């Protein structure tokens, strides 16, 4: 929990683009990057608050991964039986 708290606290300090974005922005400009074609509107992109998005993301990650690996362990054990 401390790790997550630290992650959120310092996670939004840098507004600079990441490495890939920097390469694209340097070559094409920021506007080009923002107008790349996407086939969908991300379901949760309406969440504008970074902290709310982060908390929801963490909860989703925990749920999805625990669920997936629970299924995997059950399937593997069933196969052994």
């Amino acid at each position, binding site marked *: 929990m401390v790790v997550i708290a630290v992650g959120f606290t310092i996670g939004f300090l840098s507004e600079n683009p990441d*490495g890939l*974005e920097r390469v*694209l922005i340097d070559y094409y400009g920021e506007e080009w990057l923002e107008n790349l074609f996407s086939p969908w509107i*991300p379901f*949760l992109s309406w969440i504008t608050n*970074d902290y709310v998005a982060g908390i929801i993301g963490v909860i989703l*990650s*925990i749920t999805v991964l*625990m669920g997936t690996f629970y299924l995997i362990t059950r399937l*593997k054990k069933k196969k052994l039986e």
Partner: protein
Amino acid sequence: MHIPDGLLDPITTLVLWIVTITFMILGYFRMGRMFEKEDSEKLIPYIGVLAAIIFAFQFVNYPVPGGTSGHLVGGTLVAIILGPWASVIVLFLILVIQSLFGDGGITAIGANTFNMGIISGIVGFYLVMLFVRILNNTSLKKELKVTIATAIGSYISIVLASFICGIEIGISGTIPIEIAVPAMVFWHILIGIGEGIISALIVYYIYKTKPDFITTESILKVK
């Protein structure tokens, strides 16, 4: 290194999806015996914590000189804790969740999983294994050997993943390959330092507090 939608051409996108799905299927069958044990459900809460750590730390944008930022990818870290094959599945699922927020494209999940799960995860793991073997010739404590090997292995894996990403962008015709590859590698030579340090610190912490959570210790052959 989250590739957005619209950056790669359809063929590159499709090929990387096929490769990623293949690795995930292989991963399911090749994942370690620990998932078949009687008490393997005990691992599940720790996997949940790991998921939270990876997601949260992928939000940690640390500043990098030159007006850019980096964040933990975590592929090598997950591979050391859960095994290289499990890391592909973990990173895939986290990337799917991140795409829901617009962080990384939905069509690019195959490419992103290839770069962050397969290159950073599987290749990173075997790099760590190599450096553990080298460090086994020293008198360092076990946890320090794994920590140092993690730092170096995860650093190299990120630089390698950025190289591959640069090739993908170049092959797609988005940016000439002779520009994309050096530019990607340049920034990730700097960004990778953070990956190496954060991954090493997390591994060291886990080794000291809950060493049996590092399920690959026997594979790494730390002496």
